[in-house]
């Protein structure tokens, strides 16, 4: 088992390297770069000195160097203007658009993103589990049918539409400010209890919006998995021992049907971070989704690159964590290697 862990860790390194290269290639694919766009804009405004300034900046940022060298500098294996300083050294580079280090640009927002993401995941699980279990144990009952209907509605409604509807009602009923993740007065304030409460007050709308389709999907999957497991002989065995029906359900079939969900954590993390971009735009959430969109559009290459790298890291680490959790939960995976011939 220990070997397996070490092995998995080592496999992650080349994976991330390949991903970083792919990311860099894709970002560079469109013709031109941020500065050439900038140049066109300045020239159209009649700025005659623009070409010189841009050329200076280009050298400053190292955009005049060949592609491979740029990649090496970004990664931190080749020396740039300031020596070895790249991803490996923990330096994400400079954002052109904000004229600030990428880490500062992302800084606060990444935390808010993580808060929204985790709240969404928790929301999804808390809502979908009881409903999924109920649907499975009361298959084809009135309750099952109506919950299924609601679930399908949740799956079918476009997120941004739901977002607008909820925003309206949040304002009318609770008087919550439209948009944002906190009251405006806390925007550039240090964290305090009031700010935290304000975040909580605003949080539920995006969480519900982003979480609905995931919740609906999970209810369907949990119901299907559980229905399969409930048929199994070992459930009858447990009942034959005199175990209460509900305790049987919790101890055996529910635990068996958990595997797909844990295997899914790896996918869930990046999906929640990036997938909510449109909702974030609609709700004008200060999360990372809209920023990624903007960075990609304006070819702000270091910002976009670091961003995508972050997502890749989340995916790979998430997969690793879900594999660990699976091994902890399921002895067949933990011991299977030697046991099943």
């Amino acid at each position, binding site marked *: 088992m220990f070997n397996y862990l070490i092995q998995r860790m080592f496999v992650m390194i080349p994976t991330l390297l390949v991903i970083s290269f792919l990311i860099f290639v894709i970002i560079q694919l469109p013709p031109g770069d941020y500065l050439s766009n900038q140049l066109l804009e300045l020239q159209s405004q009649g700025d005659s000195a623009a070409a010189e300034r841009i050329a200076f900046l280009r050298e400053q940022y190292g955009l005049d160097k060949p592609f491979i060298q740029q990649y090496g500098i970004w990664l931190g294996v080749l020396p740039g203007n300031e020596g070895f300083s790249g991803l490996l050294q923990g330096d994400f580079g400079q954002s052109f658009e904000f004229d600030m280090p990428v880490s500062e640009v992302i800084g606060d927002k990444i935390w808010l993103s993580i808060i929204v993401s985790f709240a969404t995941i928790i929301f999804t699980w808390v809502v979908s589990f009881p409903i999924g279990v109920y649907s499975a144990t009361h298959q084809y009952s009135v309750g099952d049918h109506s919950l299924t209907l609601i679930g399908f509605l949740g799956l079918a409604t476009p997120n941004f539409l739901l977002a607008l509807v909820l925003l309206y009602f949040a304002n009318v009923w609770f008087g919550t400010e439209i948009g944002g993740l906190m009251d405006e007065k806390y925007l550039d304030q240090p964290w305090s209890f009031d700010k935290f409460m304000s975040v909580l007050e605003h949080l539920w709308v995006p969480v519900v919006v982003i979480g609905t389709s995931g919740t609906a999907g999970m209810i369907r999957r949990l119901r299907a998995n559980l229905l399969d497991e409930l048929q199994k002989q070992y459930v*009858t065995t447990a009942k034959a021992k*005199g175990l209460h029906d509900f305790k049987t359900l919790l101890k055996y079939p529910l*635990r068996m049907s958990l595997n797909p969900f844990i295997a899914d954590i790896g996918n869930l993390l990046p999906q929640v971070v990036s997938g909510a971009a449109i909702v974030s735009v609609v709700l004008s959430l200060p999360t990372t989704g809209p920023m990624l969109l903007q960075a990609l559009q304006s070819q702000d290459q270091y910002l976009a690159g670091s961003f995508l790298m972050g997502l890749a890291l989340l995916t790979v680490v998430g997969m690793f964590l879900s594999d660990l959790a699976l091994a902890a939960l399921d002895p067949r995976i933990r011991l299977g290697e030697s046991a099943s011939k």
Partner: protein
Amino acid sequence: MDNILLVNDLHVEFNAPEGLIKAVKGVSFKIPTGKTIAIVGESGSGKSVISQSIMGILPKNGSVAQGQIKFYDPKNSFKETMITSIKNNSPEMRKVRGSGISIIFQEPMTSLSPLHTIGNQIAEGFLLHNKVGNNEAREATVEILKLVGFPNPSKSIDIYPFELSGGLRQRAMIAMAMICRPALLIADEPTTALDVTVQAQILKLMKDLQSNLEMAILMITHDLGVVANMADEIIVMYHGEIMEYGSLKDIFHDPQHPYLKSLLKAVPRFGMGPNERLIPIREINSKISTLGSEINLETGNKVVLEVKNLSKTFTTRKKSFLSNSSQNAIKAIDDVSFDVPRGECVGLVGESGCGKTTTSKIIMGALKPDTGEIIFNTSKSKIDVLKIRQRKEVLYFRKSSQYIFQDPFSSLNPRMTVFDIINEPLIIHNLGSEEDRLNKVKSLIEMVGLPITSLRRYPHSFSGGQRQRIGIARALALEPEFLICDEPVSALDVSIQAQVLNLLKDLKRDLGLTYLFISHNLAVIDYISDYIIVMCAGKIVEKAPKDDFFNNAQHPYTKALLGAVPEPNPNKKLNFQNLMDGKASIPSEWPEKYVINEKFSPTMNEIGNNHWVLSNV
């Protein structure tokens, strides 16, 4: 004598989509303390439904429509519990389950949760029914594991079910059922999924436990051999009704009901006369006609299949680039050689994991052996099977040798009609015009005794036996000379078994076919084969003509195998001493003349009349 269970006029109904199904219609019987009652019947006769009603674990759509089940708990001075009038999930019912009445099921793998240790699952019942702490429960678990014959019980307690062999899993299951010392154990086909030698051990264990704990057993089975060895009283069921109910002696020596009489005649048993036929309960009408090209037994090589020195090793490797990769080589088959003569049936017997299916897969080209040679002689030419490369050769080989599979359910594509299924080989080999094919498929389906109207239906509308016959028709479509039958009847009911066996026998006689017949059931092999090969742990341990095999078996493993088959004859009970304590299938435990270890590697030696034994000379 006190009765512990009374079943009175029990009716059970199921609410199925196609309407109300009456699974049990007015069944009454009683179970006396410490006795074994066996319920015998085909699948669908309602025997398992009775056990589910007694346990109060009927599926949701089932209900007891009428009648009573009364349980008298000897632990509670025979206080009466009316099982049929209390709710399934009520505290009273849960107290009966596990503590008063326990159940063990057919399939030991699926009956245990793979995520919990066996200790956890066994102790669960003890904790539920006794006010004790975890330590006491653990002690009780170790004790019961010792009682059911677990090696090293205090360690085994923390093992997961998938780490155990089938026999040990069933022991764990029995331990789980016994931990509260129930007054009644319901055993629902407890040994059907197990090998014969393991089956004999489990039956012995149940008998020992019964006399130790003074427990009654309700045994549900379709195997009359098991019944003859275990039961005191027998209930024969058919379509939800009791056909016959009596003591062991009466049932076997003086069967009254026609159903029981015909059931006894449908079961293959040892020592049948050379021309004696099984009489299926429902005879099928097959019109066997040669399909054009007739196989002439006289022409061509006398030996259809020559298998020479076949070996195959499977390696399970723990891959890791940090530690040295430790290889775990398992010899699936080891130096296997045999011949299959034209027009005969060679039976290949062995327990699960002995390599018989691997051998058949190699012969069909589905696996590549490490070493060895397979020569296939058709009536026209000679094929070196392992050297086939070109598509043309593959087609030719496939045309002359076909396969009949074990599982009639998964071996037919559910999305194809029967016509498409039987026609497919003809299309692949591009044989005849469309009209020719239609005629051929028609004569094939008649040959296996199914009406022509069934061609338009899909496999799901057929029973297991009918599906197996469709599989046979498909195998015969290309007019092969040689058929490999891999456990073709092991998934079928006894009464259906006879139909399929007779059909295979007739086809062989009338079409001049040659079979390699793989089975774990010695009685079936005895009925159909001319020559018998026994495999154990990847090696052939004995091969002999049928009569020699049954009268003059030499190898200890063969003897153990023969001794472990329960016969449907109460006068010939199993001799549990012959089992070598479950060591019969371990080559290093055989007596010195036959042992395989570092010092001895025995060879096949002929003792006359083409009878070969693996021994150290």
